[in-house]
């Protein structure tokens, strides 16, 4: 099969909507357009029924007991905000301390920063060189004033998967609520809110081949019953936890996407893992000085985050411009700072500048994986020929021995 360019290999950023999802959504734009909150006629009932069914599909994927535990939001950023701010506000008489990690998504980190301004105290746990949180660090950080622990299931940059079950065991024992931003990992690695003692979980549709603009916050209803203060006021939708007319087509698509993940996820993840490993082996056998960032074992199947030493990330992305990927290079960020996730893992700044994140997904073919591998190998070789650092490395000069003038 001929390769079609450009190739999308940035599936941690977003994913294309599965055609089966689009098909499920379509009737809810016109024929079944009702407002799910309309209680007095069949249009409303039809929409409400569809939303309820979608909630069940999402609940099943994460092992929730009831569809009532799924509060629909506009996406994971809103879910993270609602979880952190809503819990902090509701439980403020119980405590003022929150524990999270330095590698969380900005939606969690910036919510924590706002809470700090309001007087809450936040502990930001570090991660190991493998990018994972140590459950013992969580245990040690919990105090009598701790109300919430928020730790992501899988990291969006390096794809490393945290020991959620072990952390959940600790928080349950200590009677502290546990929120997990599970966006990247749901459907891709095991995640079960019951088995893992997760009390709140942020989910989004567009990372699992559903539409953008719809997500959910799982909020446990029993053992313990989690309460929070709504952050958006209005008509009292979602049992008063999140007002706003429901995005019915989006929610239907979200449910369908969850259903597909539940049914096909295992086989799909095995295939994607095979493609990822094939690519990893090809790159690492053809090129010297390639570093895998983050744990190999505890990792999302589709994630390959590697640093090609002596080659700057943005230049690399220009060289493979027909392939959509991401980089932890400062030159790709507005702040001109390299990835804070890689820095937190102890990856040197020069290697952080050289990192590329490949995100393989449902629609990537084996041919695409081979094409991208070939292109990356050729591009790294070309850019290294242009790199003074590579030439110095070849001459046996230790780059760390040179007095570089920081600018």
């Amino acid at each position: 099969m001929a390769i079609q360019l450009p190739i999308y290999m940035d599936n941690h950023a977003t994913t294309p909507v599965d055609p089966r999802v689009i098909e499920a959504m379509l009737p809810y734009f016109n024929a079944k357009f009702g407002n799910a909150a309309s209680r007095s006629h069949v249009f409303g009932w039809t929409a409400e029924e569809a939303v309820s069914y979608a909630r069940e599909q999402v609940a099943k994927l994460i092992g929730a007991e009831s569809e009532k535990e799924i509060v629909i939001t506009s996406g994971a950023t809103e879910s993270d905000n609602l979880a952190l701010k809503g819990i902090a506000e509701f439980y403020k008489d119980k405590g003022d301390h929150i524990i999270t990690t330095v590698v969380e998504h900005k939606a969690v980190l910036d919510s924590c920063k706002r809470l700090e301004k309001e007087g809450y105290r936040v502990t930001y746990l570090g991660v190991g060189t493998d990018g994972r949180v140590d459950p013992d660090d969580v245990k040690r950080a919990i105090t009598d004033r701790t109300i919430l622990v928020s730790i992501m299931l899988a990291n969006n940059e390096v794809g490393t998967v945290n020991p959620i079950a072990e952390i959940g065991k600790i928080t349950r024992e200590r009677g502290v609520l546990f929120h997990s931003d599970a966006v990247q990992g749901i459907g891709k690695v095991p995640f079960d809110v019951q088995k893992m003692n997760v009390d709140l979980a942020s989910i989004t549709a567009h990372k699992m081949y559903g539409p953008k603009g719809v997500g959910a916050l799982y909020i446990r209803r029993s053992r313990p019953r989690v309460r929070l203060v709504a952050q958006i006021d209005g008509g009292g939708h979602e049992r008063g936890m999140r007002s706003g007319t429901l995005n019915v087509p989006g929610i239907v698509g979200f449910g369908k996407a969850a259903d597909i993940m539940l049914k096909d996820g295992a086989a799909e993840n095995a295939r994607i893992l095979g493609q990822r490993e094939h690519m990893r082996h090809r790159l690492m056998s053809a090129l010297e000085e390639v570093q895998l960032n983050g744990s190999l074992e505890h990792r999302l199947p589709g994630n390959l985050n590697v640093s090609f030493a002596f080659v700057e990330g943005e230049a690399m992305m220009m060289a493979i411009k027909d392939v959509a990927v991401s980089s932890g290079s400062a030159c790709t960020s507005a702040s001109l700072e390299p990835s804070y996730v890689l820095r937190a893992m102890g990856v040197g700044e020069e290697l952080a500048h050289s990192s590329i994140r490949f995100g393989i997904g449902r629609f990537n073919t084996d041919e695409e994986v081979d094409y991208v591998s070939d292109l990356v190998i050729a591009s790294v070789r070309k850019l290294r020929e242009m790199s003074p650092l590579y030439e110095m490395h070849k001459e046996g000069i230790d780059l760390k021995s040179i007095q570089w003038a920081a600018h």
Partner: protein
Amino acid sequence: MAYSNKVIDHYENPRNVGTLDKEDPNVGTGLVGAPACGDVMRLQIRVSDEGVIEDAKFKTFGCGSAIASSSLATEWLKGKTVDEANTIRNTMIVQELNLPPVKVHCSVLAEDAIKSAIEDFKRKRSARHALETAAPAVETAAPAK
């Protein structure tokens, strides 16, 4: 990052990539930047006895605009006298390549690399000059520069 066609052209077809012999007395080498900052440029010039830059080469670790800035610099350097080369300013590179504000530092680095290569060449030339003059003059000639 939306780059101008000129940046893309220099990036895809870089001019004068390579290495001159840094031990050659007629070659000046400038190495600027830092790996931790994400860009390092090495720019080299070979200067004739008449003071004209006969050849210029570069190697750059950095983003597309850093590569383009150094590629353009080598193009401009060739054929210029050392004094003429000293008048190249980063703003000229920004203008020629239409660099966005966030990439202006790449042009600054290129100007630094030019200056650094010229200084290295001048240092070598004055050292050689000192050696070539009568032996007793060495001690007085060197500080005179």
